[in-house]
């Protein structure tokens, strides 16, 4: 019983933060057909914003979250305008491959700028809330984890409502399916693209503030989250939002079960073994649909 509750709690916490990191990546791929390698940098930048505002300035965590959102939104828009927009619609270009590299180039620039400014060290960032609660017989849940999961879930729900209920939300999904038809409907796609990447980056920035509280702010703090986001996105099915959320919690569940029942050292080998098997059987991912290249 203790094991089950412990697994459930860890699954929800891990899955929520994986979902928050990966959801922007899925959205960018679904709409722009870009596997955005700069998403890890946004997590890193979010961490430094959190450090600067909470540790250095001593301001409230709310300010840190808002500032991380704004800063990463702006950086995402700039990244899109610099490394993706100029390549859209160019003839004879493998758009997906080239943007994979151009966004990666931007990510390298970001982490080296961070290295120049703040150095290679790890900067501690306080938890947004401290303390923990004992849920059941030795199973502890920190308030930070609880908040992290709560905020992630709230953002994912709000995002779902936006995509299914609002004018621009439906339009964003329409663009992902047929750019030309969306254009005929009057959707201003050249303006929507940068906003999409800005918004996705802002979500990664918020995840960055939370993760820096768990770990540290550092120039390489985005590397691990980027890898996880890539895996979640491919595992769920490239471009499928529901698939991404299912995959995030599935990966959380596998990792939590393996480390609780078998041992922490076995968590990653088992996780990647399962992912390998699933992708061999369903190369399009859990909820993905085979699709053609588009832009």
């Amino acid at each position, binding site marked *: 019983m203790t094991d089950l509750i412990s697994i459930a709690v860890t699954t929800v916490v891990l899955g929520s933060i994986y979902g928050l990191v990966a959801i922007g990546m899925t959205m960018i791929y679904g709409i722009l057909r870009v596997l955005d390698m700069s998403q890890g940098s946004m997590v890193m930048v979010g961490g430094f914003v959190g450090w600067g505002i909470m540790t250095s300035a001593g301001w409230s965590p709310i300010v840190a979250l808002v500032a991380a959102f704004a800063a990463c939104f702006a950086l995402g828009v700039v990244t899109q305008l610099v490394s993706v927009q100029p390549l859209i619609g160019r003839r004879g270009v493998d758009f997906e491959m080239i943007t994979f590299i151009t966004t990666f180039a931007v990510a390298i620039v970001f982490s080296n700028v961070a290295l120049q400014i703040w150095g290679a060290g790890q900067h501690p960032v306080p938890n947004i809330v401290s303390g923990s609660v004992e849920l059941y017989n030795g199973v502890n849940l920190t308030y930070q984890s609880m908040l992290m999961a709560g905020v992630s879930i709230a953002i994912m729900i709000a995002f779902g409502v936006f995509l299914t209920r609002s004018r621009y939300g439906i339009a964003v999904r*329409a663009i992902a399916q047929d750019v030309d038809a969306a254009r005929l409907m009057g959707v201003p796609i050249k303006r929507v693209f940068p906003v999409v990447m800005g918004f996705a980056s802002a979500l990664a920035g918020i995840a960055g503030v939370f993760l820096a509280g768990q770990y540290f702010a550092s120039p390489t703090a985005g590397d691990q989250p980027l890898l996880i986001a890539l895996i979640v996105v491919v595992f769920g099915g490239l471009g499928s939002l529901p698939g991404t959320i299912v995959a995030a919690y599935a990966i959380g569940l596998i990792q939590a079960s393996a480390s609780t029942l078998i041992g922490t050292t076995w968590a990653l080998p088992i996780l990647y073994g399962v992912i390998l098997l699933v992708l061999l059987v369903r190369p399009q991912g859990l909820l993905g649909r085979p699709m053609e290249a588009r832009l």
Partner: protein
Amino acid sequence: MPAADASPVLSVRGLSAGYGESDIIHDVSFDVGAGETLVIVGPNGHGKSTVLRAISGLISASTGEVELDGRRIDGERAEVRSERGLIHIPQGDHLFPELTVEENLLMGAFPAAAWKRRAGELDRVYELFPKLRERREQHARTLSGGERRMVAVGRGLMRSPRLLVIDEPSLGLAPVIVEAVYETIERIAAQGTSILLVEENFTHIEGVADRVCVLEMGRIVRSGAAAEIAADATVAQSYLGVLEA
């Protein structure tokens, strides 16, 4: 031919257009009156779709003028023409496969002004196509060919068009379904919407066409009242087929 004396909704003068260096259509001129349905008939590959694409701005014309409600639109981008009420329903429907029927229809009302009126327009479309109301929550990719065409037409109606431009509504549909699609076009026309559509032959259009233009080799070779053109012996031979002979 209602309202032939009133000023036309669409007026096309000396339109030439094509792809790359060479024009496909030459010196095409015609009017569509208010509430009128004009059908352009002609063999495939002779430029019918090109006429529609030049009018809606998907390609730019090399010469000629296009006026909508007395206002030049030939210099404007396709999005602007569509906002002025010139709605082009292209071949192949171009629905959003993973959106529901209702979401597809709502995308037709994307411009801010139309978005405000979306509830009323949805009702109007569902009245016209009761089948779509039943299927409103279904993804467009699960629909039959006829239902897709209905969504495409309904999506065009969502922004109260001044002129509905339809490219071969019968294309790829079973005869029974074509009947149903044309019955709806008749009802849309009866509500006063002006319609410009193209078809390969006369088979389906006799109930809806007020006037007909015949387009061959990129030029309009005949035009007149639908009955008059249908009665013409040479036209009858080419476009009516054995059924009507």
